């Protein structure tokens, strides 16, 4: 496969007394879906927030296309082609879908100092992009607060995809979704990957990971337990890895191995 | 009959002093058979007061009575009203010269600085060398004028003898006590009205200094006149607000009806109320005095 677009080396992150990440290395290549798995509190969200410029790593190195970078803000990361769909969705309920879609990168027209937002253009693109994802909006000025959870998720993904990211990071996009919505998100991931974008997919759900992942990295208590290629690992092995492989056995026998 | 006048003051809604004026206006208006509206800027903001003058002149009243709280602010609106042919009488604060410059018919009132100066001279005669001026509405320019006049009368520079006491009576009382404790050489007090005088009386009494300290105040109230009687307060500057409320209404009525008016301004103060003449004013203090 191609060289890594984004590479993180030995990332450490402390929050005051809390050591959230303790030397994590990770990379994404173009056109692959790299799954990041791990239990609650393993540090997945912290790690991807480091990637996307929300936090600065306490220690460690980040490389984009082989160049060392240091993001001061999410804006920098976006400029470098890293788009993120956060677990907490980063949508503003009282604002319209179109305004949310374009937030932070509003299209403009006219000349300074009379530059205005190109609302017509923004609305058209929003409606078109949402339709591509299978959502028919009542109108581009519908408030996001009136959308369902699944619909909001889709706006967030559509936004990231539209802005032509090189790397798309999805933090547990399926955890609150129903079956149909989940299938939709997974097939979107698949579609995005085929466009040559590197996808970082975070989930608790081993089956969702296996459905779309090319590589799998498991985080545990702030450290990596290693990376596996697709095919080299199966669901139960991953599950054991995530759980630390201990008392799960006892539970599984009583519940029939269906977790 | 039924002429419309407005009486515009600078006192905020909560200012108790203008009550006597309101009462005077009411009585005089009934006597003369006119309607006089009392108006004031709710927070005491003089810019709002200027709007009131403009409003009255827009409403086309038959006469305006207005205090010269700040010559600069009121100059434009008053001149406009006069230009419109509305007779204007200035009252209360401000000087006769200012009144004339504005082109008002006359001035009925008491110039604040001079009143303070008079009080200061009196205090100096009584031997006051170090004083405190209890200012309960320091944001109001007129109040500072009174303290400044007082200081000049005694012949000292106004510095931190003027204390920002606030309106809350307990705070005023305790601030005065604190000042007197920290500055035991103080032998004169000036308060600027009932709001600062009443708590100060208590402070002085609490400290056993009643009669020991030369205490002057502006304006009257029931408690102030009691204090004058028992010797705590040496004098109160009475600017006879009743007259400030009443005379302009009478003059305007007669002017509008019959075209007659006095030719000179009338100074209603500073009159000094002391133990000697307190009997007269005691009964009516706060309501008509």
């Amino acid at each position, binding site marked *: 496969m191609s060289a890594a677009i984004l590479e993180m080396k030995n990332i450490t992150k402390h929050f005051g007394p809390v050591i959230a990440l303790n030397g994590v290395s990770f990379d994404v290549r173009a056109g692959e879906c790299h799954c990041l798995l791990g239990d609650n509190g393993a540090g997945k969200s912290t790690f991807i927030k480091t990637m996307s410029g929300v936090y600065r790593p306490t220690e460690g190195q980040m490389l984009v296309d082989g160049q060392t970078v240091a993001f001061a803000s999410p804006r920098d990361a976006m400029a470098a082609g890293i788009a993120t769909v956060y677990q907490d969705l980063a949508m503003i309920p009282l604002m319209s879908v179109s305004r949310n879609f374009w937030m932070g990168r509003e299209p403009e027209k006219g000349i300074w100092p009379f530059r205005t937002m190109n609302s017509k253009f923004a609305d058209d693109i929003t409606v078109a992009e949402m339709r591509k994802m299978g959502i028919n909006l009542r109108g581009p000025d519908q408030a996001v607060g009136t959308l369902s959870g699944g619909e909001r998720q889709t706006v967030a993904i559509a936004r990231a995809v539209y802005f032509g990211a090189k790397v798309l990071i999805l933090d547990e996009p399926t955890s609150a979704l129903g079956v149909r919505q989940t299938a939709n998100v997974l097939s979107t991931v698949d579609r995005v990957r085929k466009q040559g974008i590197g996808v970082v997919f975070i989930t608790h759900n081993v089956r969702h990971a296996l459905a779309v992942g090319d590589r799998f990295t498991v985080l545990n208590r702030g450290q990596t337990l290693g990376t596996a290629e697709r095919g080299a690992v199966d669901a139960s092995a991953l599950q054991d890895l995530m759980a630390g492989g201990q008392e799960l056995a006892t539970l599984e026998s009583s519940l029939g191995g269906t977790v | 009959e039924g002429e419309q006048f407005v009486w515009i003051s600078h006192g905020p809604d909560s200012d108790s002093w203008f009550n006597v004026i309101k009462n005077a206006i009411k009585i005089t208006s009934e006597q003369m058979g006119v309607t006089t509206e009392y108006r004031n800027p709710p927070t005491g903001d003089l810019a709002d007061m200027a709007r009131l003058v403009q*409003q009255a002149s827009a409403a086309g009243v038959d006469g305006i009575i207005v205090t010269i709280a700040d010559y600069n602010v009121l100059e434009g609106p008053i001149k406009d009203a006069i230009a419109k042919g509305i007779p204007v009488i200035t009252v209360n604060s401000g000087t006769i010269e200012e009144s004339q410059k504005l082109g008002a018919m006359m001035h009925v009132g008491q110039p604040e600085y001079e009143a303070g100066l008079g009080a200061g001279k009196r205090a100096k005669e009584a031997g006051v060398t170090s004083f405190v001026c209890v200012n309960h509405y320091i944001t109001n320019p007129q109040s500072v004028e009174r303290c400044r006049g007082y200081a000049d009368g005694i012949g000292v520079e106004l510095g931190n003898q003027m204390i920002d006491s606030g309106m809350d009576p307990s705070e005023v009382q305790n601030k005065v006590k604190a000042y007197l404790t920290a500055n035991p050489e103080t032998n004169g007090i000036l308060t600027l009205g009932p709001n600062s005088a009443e708590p100060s009386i208590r402070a002085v009494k609490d400290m056993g200094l009643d009669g020991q300290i030369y205490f002057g105040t502006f304006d009257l109230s029931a408690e102030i006149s009691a204090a004058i009687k028992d010797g705590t307060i040496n004098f109160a500057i009475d600017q006879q607000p009743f007259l400030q409320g009443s005379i302009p209404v009478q003059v305007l009525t007669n002017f509008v009806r019959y075209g007659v008016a006095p030719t000179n301004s009338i100074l209603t103060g500073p009159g000094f109320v002391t133990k000697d003449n307190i009997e007269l004013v005691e009964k009516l203090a706060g309501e008509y005095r």
Partner: protein
Amino acid sequence: MSETTTAPRPDERMKQVAPWRRALIRPELGGICGTILVFLLFGAIAGDSGMFAAEGVLNWTVVSAQFMVIAVGACLLMIAGEFDLSVGSMIGFAGVMMAILSVQMGWPMWAAITATFAFCILLGAINGWLVIRTGLPSFIVTLAFLYILRGLTIWGSVYFTRQTIIGGVAERAQGDWLAALFGGKILGGLFTWMGDAGWIATFTKGNRAGQPVIDGVPMLVVWAIGLAIFGHWLLTRTKFGNWVFAAGGDAQAARYVGVPVNRVKILMFMFSAFCACVFASCQVMEFGSAAADRGLLKEFEAIICVVIGGALLTGGYGSVIGAALGAIIFGVVQQGLFFANAESSLFRVFLGMILLIAVIMNTYIRRIITGER
């Protein structure tokens, strides 16, 4: 996510809502209704008092314009999710600073005005910076500045002039180009012509007999309208406006997608300070004096205008047009009560009632918009 067909189909789980009802749903609706109501009301009770003659109109227009200037600043700031209780103190401070610099220090007027604007905007930036940096609610930080600035104003004016009122600004402002921008009047010719044509009343007696009762539109009114238009344009038409909404709606979310939230908020604090300075300059230039008690409680009045105009106290929702209408309502009610000869101590009671009724109405409207209950 319920449909994957391309043609929108009405959702069977939505009851029908009349389209006219939908069209009406906008933040400034409350303000619009309120304005109409207020004019009808005073038209009925004070119609013959001169309130709607040229001079009366100018009277409440000027008062409304004053409110509008600070309401526009407060509105944008409130939509950005913060508010500023130091506006009133800032007005007093700016006026006194201008007067001290020009009258006491002898600076030329334009220099005094420029320096005051620069310093006050800097103070606004400090306000904003503290709010951002400490993460404290703006209520607390600006409350501290309310006290600090008022204290400095009183101290400064007493220290430099032994008075809390500083006159003589008018003489210094004479012929100054920048002062004219705040204290001047425009369209004087038009009014003279209208007076001559008999369209507006003229003075009938006194030494200005024959001149029209209005000799021009004060620059304050021009500023108010200008600021309202600018604010409305900024908020609804520009990228920056979108960021203002975003910063107030959910600062964290906005930060995640790359909106420079801190910069937006600090800029809005600076804009609010700028509006306070415009207010102070117009007042000082018009009246020729500054006083330490100017602007008392104006912060509340600004907030009231904004809230009457439909903005949400918690940020992220509102409209500058609404705030401007709120200012008009406030101004008309305040002056109208005088025209109607109402007992003036009841003014506050009315004000409180109007505030309550207006916000309850606005809440109802907003609930329809967002569908929340």
